C-alpha cells in the first residue's frame, strides 16, 4: 500500500531534508527533521501524522517556504519555495491551526486578502470572496468582524481565504483541532469535498488517527525527529476492515 511517486511526478518533493534549530554541533542544537524523503503527487491528499513535537510543523513551514531546510532539497512544483518565495504567490495556500484572521478586517475583507496580493481587481475580488463565503455557509456574515463570529465560523472564513486564491497546493496545520468534535466533523467533510472538487494537492497535518483516515488518501506517520515511520495509501474503495488494520498499524507505530 506504500505510495510510489517519482520526483518528476511530484507536486511536492523532499529529498534528504534535515532541519536543525540552534547552532549545529552545539549542545543547544535541536534536530527537528532528519533526512526526510517524501514525494506527494498532484491531486493527492496527504495526512502527516505524528506525536506533538515530531517536526510536523517544521516540515509544513519548509514546504510553505517560511523556513529554510538546514540540508537537503525541498521542491514544490519543481521550485524551491524558500528561495523562489515570491514566485509562489497565489500557488500555495495555508489553513493554520488557529484561524489567524486579521482582527481589523471584516470576514469578506479577510477572504479577499490573498486576492489583493495577486492584484485581482476590486470587483472581481469581492465577487470571489463572496462566492467562497457562500460556499462555506457564511452568507449574511460578510461584514462581521472576527470577534463577532464563533470559532467554527472564523475557521470557515480562514478556509474560504485559502480557497479563494485558487492555489493548487493547500497546506493545513491541524485546522480543526481547536473546534468541538461536531463542528470539526462537519468542517472536515466540507473541506474534503472542496479539495476533491477543486483538484488540489493537500498536505494535512494532524495528530488524530481518525482525522487522518477521514481526510487523507495517503497517510505518512512520522517519528521523532521527523522521519517516515509508516507510509500508506488508500482510496474510497478501501474497506472498513482494511482501514481498521491501517488504524491499528498506525497505533503500533505511534506507540513504538
Amino acid at each position, binding site marked *: 500500500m506504500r505510495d510510489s511517486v517519482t520526483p518528476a511526478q511530484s507536486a511536492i518533493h523532499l529529498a534528504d531534508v534535515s532541519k536543525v534549530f540552534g547552532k549545529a554541533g552545539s549542545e543547544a542544537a535541536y534536530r527537528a527533521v532528519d533526512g526526510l524523503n517524501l514525494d506527494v503527487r498532484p491531486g493527492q491528499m496527504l495526512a502527516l501524522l505524528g506525536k506533538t513535537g515530531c517536526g510536523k510543523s517544521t516540515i509544513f513551514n519548509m514546504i510553505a517556504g517560511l523556513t529554510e531546510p538546514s540540508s537537503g532539497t525541498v521542491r514544490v512544483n519543481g521550485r524551491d519555495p524558500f528561495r523562489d518565495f515570491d514566485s509562489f504567490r497565489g500557488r500555495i495556500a495555508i489553513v493554520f491551526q488557529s484561524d489567524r484572521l486579521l482582527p481589523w478586517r471584516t470576514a469578506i475583507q479577510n477572504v479577499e486578502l490573498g486576492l489583493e496580493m495577486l492584484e485581482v481587481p476590486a470587483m472581481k475580488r469581492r465577487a470571489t470572496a463572496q462566492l467562497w463565503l457562500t460556499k462555506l455557509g457564511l452568507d449574511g456574515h460578510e461584514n462581521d468582524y472576527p470577534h463577532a463570529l*464563533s470559532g467554527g465560523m472564523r475557521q470557515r472564513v480562514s478556509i474560504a481565504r485559502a480557497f479563494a486564491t485558487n492555489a493548487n497546493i493547500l497546506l493545513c496545520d491541524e485546522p480543526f483541532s481547536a473546534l468541538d468534535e461536531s463542528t470539526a466533523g462537519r468542517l472536515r467533510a466540507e473541506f474534503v469535498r472542496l479539495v476533491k472538487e477543486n483538484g488540489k494537492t493537500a498536505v494535512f497535518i494532524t495528530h488524530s488517527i481518525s482525522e487522518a483516515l477521514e481526510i487523507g488518501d495517503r497517510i505518512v506517520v512520522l517519528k521523532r525527529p521527523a522521519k517516515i515511520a509508516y507510509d500508506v495509501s488508500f482510496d474510497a474503495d478501501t474497506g472498513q476492515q482494511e482501514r481498521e488494520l491501517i488504524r491499528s498499524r498506525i497505533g503500533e507505530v505511534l506507540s513504538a
Partner: protein
Amino acid sequence: MSDTAPQPGSPPRANMLLAAIKRLGSSALPFVVVILVWQFASLFFPRFLFPSLIDVFWRCLEIFSSGAMFADVLATILRILAGLAGAFIVGGGLALLMVRSRAVDHFLSPILTLFQGIPALSWVVFAIIWFHGIEFRIFFIMVMTTLPAFTFQLLGALHGMSRDLMEMVFSFRPTRLKLFRVMIAPAILPDILTAWKVNLGNASRVVVVAELVGATGGVGYQLLQQQQLFDMAGALAWTLQLVFFVLIVQGALTLIENIAFRYRAVSERAI
C-alpha cells in the same frame, strides 16, 4: 454548518442616552470642582494671585478675536505639530532600522536612552548655542525632546506585532508595500495614536519653555510678558489656549480611535 455567532442584545435608546449623559457628567465633574474652588478663592485673594474666572474668560475671548494675538497661538500650535511630525518621521525610521537589525538596535538604544535623560531646558541651551534661526532652534528642541519616546513606542509596537498574523500574511507572499498596508500599519496604529497622545502633552509643555527663552512670539513668549506685568489673568488665558489646543487634538485622536478600532470587541465587564 449551522453554528451561529453570539448576538448581543442592544439596550434601548433612552438608556443609552442616559448613560451618555452620566458619562459626560462624570467627566465634567472634576473640572467643575476646580472652577468653583478657583472662583471661590478669587473672592478672598488679590487679583494678581487668583483673578476671577470671568476676567480670564474675557481675556481668552480677546486672544481669540484679536488677529495679532491669535497668530501667536497659531505659531505655537504649528511649532508643536511640526516638532511632533519631525520626531514621528525620524523616530519611525529609526524604529524600522532597529527592528530590522539587532546591531542597529544595540547601537541606537543607549543613545536614545541618553537623550531621554537630558532635560528639555538643556536642549534649549544647546539649541541657542548651536543654531541661529529661532524657528530651527524650536524645531530642534521639539524633535530632540520627543524623539526617544516616539522611537521606543514605535519599536515596541513593531516588536509586539503578532507573529502568527505576520506568518499568515507572509504565506500570501506580499510585496513590502502590501505587507506594510495590510499588516504593519493597522497593527501598530493603536500604538501610534497612543504615542501621539502622550507626546502631544509633552510637546505642549516643552514648546513653552523653548519660546520663553528663544522666541519673539508664541504662547511662551506671551507668558513671559504676563509674568513681567504680573498679570495672572493674562497668564491663565494664554495657558488655556494651549490647554484648549491639546484637548481639541486629543479629542480628534480619540475620534480617530473610535472609528479605526471599531473592530475591537467590547467586554461588558471593565478591568
